[in-house]
């Protein structure tokens, strides 16, 4: 259930400028409004895109969040690879990685 909440937070962050502003100014306060697991909460606090990827966040939601954080494309792709290196395979959802962590499919 908490993955649903994590994804709902991403959904709100991606489309609501007011939530984006609150997230920048009082991140913990925004997170308190969602029923997140400790792992999810820590990942949001740290802006850890790789961990959120491994936890199963839908890639389309996560991609927009990475853009919101200002991550260049190559850094975002690498963050997901690093997440898998550190935490193992994607645990849920339909955005599993099928390539290896040292493979740069599109050169980035």
């Amino acid at each position, binding site marked *: 259930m908490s993955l649903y909440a994590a994804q709902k937070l991403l959904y709100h962050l991606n489309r609501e400028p007011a939530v984006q502003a609150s997230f920048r100014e009082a991140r913990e306060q925004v997170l308190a409004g969602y029923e997140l697991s400790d792992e999810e909460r820590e990942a949001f606090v740290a802006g850890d895109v790789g961990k959120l990827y491994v936890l199963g966040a839908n890639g*389309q939601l996560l991609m927009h969040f990475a853009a919101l954080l200002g991550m260049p494309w190559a850094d975002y792709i690498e963050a997901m690879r690093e997440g898998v290196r550190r935490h193992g395979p994607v645990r849920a959802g339909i955005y599993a990685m099928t390539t290896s962590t040292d493979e740069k499919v599109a050169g980035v």
Partner: protein
Amino acid sequence: MSLVFAGACSHAPGITGRAHLAEAGVRDAFHAEFRGMGEALAAAKPDALVVIAAEHFANFFMNNMPAYAMGMADHYEGPIEDPGWLGIARTRVPGNADLSLRLVRGVMQDVDLAYAEEWKFDHGIMVPLHFLTPKFDLPVVPVNINCQGPPLTPLHRAWAFGEALRRACEAVPERIALVSTGGISHWPATPDSGKINEPWDREFLDRWSRQDKAGMLSYSDEATYRDAGQGGFEIRTFIATAAAARGRGEVRFYAPIPIFSVGCTVALMAIE
């Protein structure tokens, strides 16, 4: 009047947002064909453009996910993404609520669908519009088929939706252009981004172009996920347009462009 134009195209955000990272020759050829599709669309003198998209949680979420939805507003805004990231400035796009209402009522005769009086466009619609109607001056009626959050509508229902949309278009006096956007095979928003199954894409496009209904509807979601990635689920948009247009397809451009994360496609379809 009914349909006056039909086609299908890619919509990946890299097409505009990472254009500077692509090899110039193939990028420019693709962009030129994309713009050419816009010229063909304009030549058909449509009163409105129906875009069948596969949005990415800009409007719909798993708390209340419609299999099919149509916009019903006089204007829309997009992109929801950071404009610098997408390479498209935020803008207001005209709609036509009255036309939408009539189309929604028409489709509802055969297919249950949701309607939305507000709708934020993401790259799934903004990237195609950037090339097809670069002045954002043609009223748009957005359509969404849920291709992102399973369970997904079965392919034969996407076909039925396309047929219903055609009947609805035939019942209004306006000249309607129809463009579907999506896939084909791709593994977007993962470290696999850039992986493209070109033979799978070409086989699907062949079936689409030949109006091979049985072939288009024969893909299981399990096989599509395995062979064409989660992005492959977006074939639903192509299938709906094939059902609506009924004619032969013509692939004007297809090339895998890994930095764009997709086999980039521009295709037209005759209306019969």
